[in-house]
């Protein structure tokens, strides 16, 4: 399959969805339908977005928000992978810590805010909130991956008396890596979501802050512009992460072979 058809495949559903959205909202607007005030057509959103995103808001809100989010995500990734390998390969660590983590990860992030407020104060709680919320997909998936190391490979590693570093980074991490990436991709969007949630509180800037302000000020077009920005950012970061993933998992035969086999099966 050539590049052009692939690209077309990639965007056709998206384009149709946006087209439908435009059509429906325009019709609603023309009919002065109830609530159409809150659902402006995408063309209007695009115009507002252009003004909003590339104004002073870029430096004041978008950049601080993104840096918090990326920093939080990266830290969550590192901690999640490290803890995940520990918990996945050590029964004892799991026995002692599993319960605490399962307890903590079930607390909705907005309810955790009091803890972070108590620990670092309301104006600084964004970063810990993001880290705390984004850890879990990486952690759980890494645990799964680390635990799933094939028994023969575990025995091979033990026979050759690999060093701890070699065992961790040479055996456990690579075999967990596909699952880790699934976790990282989930965490990425969760980090973005928590960036917004945490910016609702105590923050003078950020995308979430602007989004809520637009909501409160009854400026639905601006609100949608911020929502769309979140989508765009999510898409961009995800695409970058996928590039990274393809490199890291280049050794895998599966990406082409197996999906193909499944697709043409039967």
């Amino acid at each position, binding site marked *: 399959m050539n590049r052009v058809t692939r690209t077309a495949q990639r965007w056709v559903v998206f384009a149709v969805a946006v087209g439908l959205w435009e059509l429906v909202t325009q019709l609603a607007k023309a009919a002065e339908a109830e609530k159409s005030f809150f659902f402006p057509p995408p063309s209007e959103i695009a115009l507002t977005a252009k003004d909003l995103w590339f104004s002073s808001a870029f430096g004041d809100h978008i950049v601080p928000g993104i840096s918090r989010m990326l920093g939080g995500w990266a830290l969550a990734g590192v901690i999640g992978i490290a803890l995940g390998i520990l918990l996945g390969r050590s029964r004892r660590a799991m026995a002692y810590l599993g319960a605490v983590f399962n307890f903590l990860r079930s607390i909705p992030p907005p309810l955790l805010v*009091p803890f972070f407020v*108590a620990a670092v*104060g*309301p104006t600084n709680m964004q970063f810990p909130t993001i880290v705390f919320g984004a850890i879990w997909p990486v952690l759980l998936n890494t645990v799964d991956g680390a635990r799933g190391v094939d028994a023969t490979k575990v025995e091979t590693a033990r026979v050759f008396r690999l060093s701890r570093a070699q065992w961790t980074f040479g055996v456990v991490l690579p075999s967990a890596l596909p699952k880790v990436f699934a976790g990282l991709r989930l965490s990425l969007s969760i980090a973005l979501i928590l960036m917004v949630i945490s910016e609702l*509180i*105590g923050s003078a800037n950020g995308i979430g802050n602007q989004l809520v*302000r637009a909501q*409160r000020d009854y400026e639905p077009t601006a609100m949608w512009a911020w929502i769309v920005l979140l989508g765009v950012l999510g898409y961009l970061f995800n695409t970058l992460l996928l590039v990274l993933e393809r490199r890291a998992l280049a050794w895998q035969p599966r990406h082409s072979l197996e999906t193909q086999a499944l697709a043409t099966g039967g």
Partner: protein
Amino acid sequence: TLSGCGLLGGDDNTTSSGSTGSAGAVEKAKVKVGVLPVVDVAPFYRAIEQGYFRDQGLDVEPVVMASGAASINAVLSGDVDIAFSSYPAPLLAQSKKVAEFKIVADALTAKPGHIVVVAPPNSPLKKPTDAPGKKIAITARNTMTDLAPMSVLKTQGVDYTQVEWREMTFAEMIPAMERGEVDGAVVVEPWVTTAMKKIGAVPVFDGASGPTAEMPMSGYVAIGGTGKFASTSPNTIAAFQRGLAKAQAEATDRTKVEPMFVKYAKIDQQTAQLVTIATYSTSLEANRIQRVANLMQEFGVIKGNLDVASMIPSSTSNK
């Protein structure tokens, strides 16, 4: 839909028989009202408990919302008939022509001690003239918590534009003040009392003084226009007004409202006894509420003129 499931906390669609009130028959006996867990709605709950609405032929069901904005959205969606909110939100929505808002009742009017700028004891913020350059916590921009103090500062000739406003919930303002993350906070009751009690916060100036003295704070709104509740149910609204007014009038007696604070706003008994009780309005006067609109205009929240009189339903019994 899914709401049928009682377990999930959906409404239990009990239809009330509703005895006839003093005036014309109500168009809609069952009325859902979006409210917030705040002191402003104490008389509303009293009216329910005392059966004042029932006496008017109404079966009023409170729906507890999380914020004024959520309350407004609920009334816009038609899910509740009447929404309680502090005034800026519906006035702003009206000015943006989101819908035709009708103010069906006035809830609370500020009194000294109800909305106060407080500061921790060791704060550099001691008097209004200290405000420029200080960080002051508010719930959100374009609400009473920033408009009222700005107005006070402006009349005292203080440069209010230099204040750094920090948005957070009331609950977070207290540790924020104690940690020195903010120099002060704009709080309303019961948080004025709580802040004093917990960290010995001291009042810096009153948010409802001078230009904002006796400022209307909050009210009940409905949506008008063709086919909408406020247009189709004038008798219901009148009945709601009568029922509420009775409780509002009784609210001058704090023993009548204190139990409501404890029960519905979950204010603890001790604090409830200390809370400054503001004025619960017994009449709905457009010119008073117009002050809020003017205040919002003054600070650029509302562009152009907003005539509050047009928001008072025609059926209203008060002037």
